[in-house]
Structure formats: structure tokens, C-alpha cells
């Protein structure tokens, strides 16, 4: 996260880290059920085998998993069949953990939005992750507040690439607070107006080269577009496993 700050320990209990072999942290992910997480499809390019991955939850410092952290293997990865790596469209995948997490204050799923429920443009939401900070990679989870940007306005920042209905833009024209490399798959969450509950509206997907002088908002996978698909994948894996 660029322009963010260190998050309070346990503040974002749905944030998880997707790790692979010797590489350690590769992408962020988001817990949506006791054995289900979401991340973006591009994290699995060239490495779609489930056994290569593990998921760390309840984590704050990447280097020092504390007593509250939990670790799970990955049973299955479902990349969206429409994922297009050239234009980073349909950038979403469902991750099935090899066993249920123990739900605690530190490890808890986020709410999924209703179908096509989108946050209001100009409202403020939060992004989190262990991605690049512009000058270094952090050890501790970072958080940043970003503004939701309308699709038409976002399109004007990225005239070379099309912003589709599967994408959501958030951030600032000046790029002051933005997601960056290593944040991919992590959450963009907004608090309900009545307060209390947080809903997952985006997954960090792409943007301009975040630590260059080419600035602009970040682009997130629009989770509410995929809500029925996510439910179907979970239903099929749970009740129709054969």
C-alpha cells in the first residue's frame, strides 16, 4: 500500500496471505467463509496447482506469525473461466482451504455484497495488504483509505485499457494512497452506513506502475459482479463434490 499506515493488530480479520514455497508472500487473499477465500486469478498464472500454496490467516507481521495466526493448505483453486490475462478482465478466483479455520476475533470472514450492489462513487473504503510501499516491502500489514471512483471517470485515466463492468476503481488521481505490487488479491472493503459490518467490494487487481510517476487510481475486481458465481462455486464444491 502506498501512502497508508500500519494497521492495528487484528483490525482486518479477513485479510490473509497467499504463500508459495520459497517465495513466501505472493498475493493477498480474503476470507469469505470458514473454508473459503477469494483472491485474483492472476496470482495463479503458471502455478495453478493447489498443493503449491498455503494460506496464512490472523497474520500481522509477515516475518513473525503470532499466536493468533492460523495456517491452512489449499484443497482447490477455481480460476474464473473467463479470466483474460491480456486485459486483466474477470480477475477472480475462489480458494478452498484444506480444512475449516477456527473463527476467532483475529480470523473472521468478511460479508459478500449482494449481486450488483456497488459502493457509491466518492464514498470512502479501505484497502489492506503487505504489498510494496514505494520504497520498500513492509513486514506489518498496511491499511489505506481510498475513494470510490465512478467508471466513466476511471476510464479517462486508463484510455489504453478498457475498464469493464467486472472492474471497480478506487484511489486518487494523484495516486497518494494506492495499492501496489504484492497487494493483489487483497480486499477493498466498505463499512455499512449503519456501521458495524464490513462488506468486500473489491479485490486488488491492477493499475499503473504504482511507484513510478505515472499515477492514477487502482483497479479492483468488482466482487458484486461475481457474487452469484462465487456462491455457485461454493455450492458445487460443498454439496456436489463429484
Amino acid at each position, binding site marked *: 500500500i502506498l501512502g497508508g499506515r500500519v494497521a492495528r493488530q487484528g483490525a482486518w480479520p479477513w485479510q490473509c496471505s497467499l504463500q508459495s514455497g520459497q517465495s513466501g508472500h505472493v498475493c493477498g487473499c480474503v476470507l469469505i467463509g470458514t473454508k473459503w477465500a477469494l483472491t485474483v486469478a492472476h496470482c495463479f498464472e503458471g502455478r495453478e496447482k493447489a498443493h503449491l500454496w498455503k494460506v496464512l490467516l490472523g497474520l500481522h507481521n509477515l516475518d513473525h506469525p503470532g499466536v493468533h495466526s492460523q495456517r491452512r493448505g489449499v484443497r482447490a483453486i477455481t480460476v474464473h473461466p473467463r479470466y483474460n490475462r491480456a486485459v486483466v478482465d474477470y480477475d477472480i478466483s475462489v480458494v478452498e482451504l484444506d480444512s475449516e479455520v477456527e473463527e476467532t476475533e483475529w480470523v473472521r470472514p468478511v460479508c459478500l455484497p449482494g449481486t450488483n450492489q456497488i459502493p457509491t462513487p466518492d464514498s470512502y473504503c479501505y484497502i489492506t495488504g503487505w504489498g510494496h510501499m514505494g520504497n520498500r516491502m513492509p513486514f506489518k500489514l498496511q491499511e489505506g483509505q481510498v475513494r470510490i471512483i465512478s467508471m466513466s471517470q476511471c476510464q479517462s485515466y486508463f484510455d489504453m485499457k478498457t475498464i469493464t463492468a467486472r472492474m471497480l476503481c478506487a484511489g486518487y488521481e494523484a495516486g497518494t494512497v494506492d495499492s501496489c505490487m504484492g497487494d493483489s488479491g487483497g480486499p477493498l472493503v466498505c463499512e455499512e452506513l449503519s456501521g458495524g459490518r464490513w*462488506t468486500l467490494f473489491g479485490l486488488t487487481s491492477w493499475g499503473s506502475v504504482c511507484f513510478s510517476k505515472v499515477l492514477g487510481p487502482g483497479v479492483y475486481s468488482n466482487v458484486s459482479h461475481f457474487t452469484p458465481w462465487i456462491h455457485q462455486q461454493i455450492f458445487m464444491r460443498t454439496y456436489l463434490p463429484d
Partner: protein
Amino acid sequence: CASTSCDTRHHNCTGCEPISLELCMNLPYNHTRFPNFLGHVSQRESSVSWESSLFPALVQTGCYQYLMFYACTLLVPKCDPLSLSTVPPCRSLCRTAKEKCESVLGIVGLQWPDDSDCAQFPEEGGDSTCLLPEAGVDECSPSHFKCRSGRCVLASKRCDGLADCDDRSDEDHCGCTERSLWECPGSGVCIKTSMICDGIPDCPLLADEVNCSACGDNELACNNHKCVHRTLWCDGKKHCTDASDEWDCVSLTQSSGSILTVQRTADHYHVCADEWNQQLSKLTCDQLGLGVPASVSMVPEQGGPPGRRRWLHVHPEWEERKGSALQARLEKRSHSCHSGKRVALVCVRDKCGLRPAMDARLSRQKR
């Protein structure tokens, strides 16, 4: 050689053949003969040759208006239908093309094709016929888009979001057709033709996924448009390859007190409350993704003669059917429900989206 007029070197064996090289499909002649003036022995060899890549790229520089015509007279020379011999380009055409475009190639360190020595071609007006661009010759090949300025750019550059014509005309009027895409009816959204009727909605109002199935009277269409017999619908087993016969088989009516409704054989049923239990309530809320059961009630059926009710009962062996969806744990019965009561269920979202309580010292620090 099939032709007796040919020698044994397997050269000049074929007669005139229709032009199939896409680059040169808009020439003022339709037939060619091989070998061509670049030494290629077939249209296939010609199509994968260095020159068939070089000339279309060079055309984009706008170095010579008739460069593509000249290139095609070399790649697929005209075949004279009477003499069955090839007709070369005129020497002046060759010289003009070379004079105007060789230097452009030199800038990027490339050489003019060796086999196109202009001295080999006849002068116009001499004894033998040769080709010159006549009025109406297309300056751009079918693989090119002609800019308003007259320049040719590769057709693949049309409507790609980047201006390739000097006057940006390749980015004008970029509708779906211009981009070789399909326009969703009723909206300006363009999708690939391969996305039509593939089971994944891409157009607003699912317009790309309508009228895609032709199922029989006893069948229903899966989401991917395959047909499955209606008696197999919502039986807890996957019959559609995309499992869509088992989606949305369970619902809670929003309008009339959260009554549990289950589909079997493509019909809606209420669930008889006689054998209902808490585990099934939990399964139902879980399957619907709605959290945990908050309340269960047994609601008397209202209206209509009792004998005509359509009831589903809990299967006697429901416990053995572990891991399967609610619809698999119910069975269809023809007789009525003993209590005459149906299941009503309210689910509440569990603890999703809740963050730990903030430390008061951090959140309300006095100034």
C-alpha cells in the same frame, strides 16, 4: 508434371490458379502462377515468406502509394489466361517503389528484397506486356485499413484504442462490427462471437444467452444450454455438466413469512413440518449462504382443498445422505402432510464483516 509441356525439373508445372493470398485479394486480376518473381514455388510459401511480412509493414510508412500493388505483382504475379505465362511489373513501377521505399528500410537496417532487381522487368510500351497501377487500384491490401489521409495501416490496428493513422481516422466510428465483435442487442456493449451461448452471461439483460437451447417438452435447459430431463432437476445429483440443475432449488419466500420452498422435478413444493429438525434448518441456511437459523416455525397451510397440496417430506434416511444439498434429503410424496403445516425459516448472517472492538484509549483519545 501433369502437363506434357513441362520439363522434368518440376518447374512451371501448374497452370493459372486463383489467388488465395489474403494480402493480395483486391488486385485487378484474379489468377496467378508460380514460381513468382521472388522464387517462391507456391502461394503457401509466398504467404509465410519474409517479403509478405515486410511489404505490409512498409506500406504503413506511406513511402509509396502503390507499394502494395507492386509487392503483389511479385508475390502473386498475374497469370495470362491465354499464354499461361506470368506478367511482370513494369520496370518503372519497380524503380519507383525501390527509390521511394528502399531508404525507409535502410533506416531500420533492413535491405530491399534481393530478387527484385528492376532490370529483369520490361519497360512499358515494349514488346512484352507488363503491369502498371491503373486507375482504381486499391492502395491498401485487404489486410490494411485505409486512413482518411490515404495511408494504409494494418487492419488489426483499427479500433485498438491507439491512433495509428496520422489523422487518427483508424479510431473513428469504432462500433462492434468494426472491431469484429458482436453487439449485445439493446446496448452498445461488444463481445466476442465465441461468447454467445456459452453459458456465461456477458451482455446486459443476458442477451447473449437467450434462444440458445432447443429442448424437448420433458426437458429443461441447463445454464450452458444442454438439455436435461425435468424429472432429474433438483434431485441432489448433478446432471447438467455445469451443475445448474441443482442451483437455486431451495429458497425462502420473502413475501409470505420466509416459507421454505424447494424445487423437485422442476416444480415448487412446500416442506411438510412433520419430520423437520434443527439440523436441516442449519443445512438450509448454510446452503443459501444466509448464515445460521434464527427461528423456525410451523405454519398452517392456507386455502384450497388439502388433497391438492404439493408436499415434500424429509427422507427417512436423511441422515445417511450426508454432504448433499437439502433437496437430496427430501423426497416427493403423493399423500398429504399429517400436520398440514409447512416449514418457515428465518436465517441471519453470522459474524461476517465484524471487526474486533476498538480499544477505547486509541479511538477516543482526548485532546
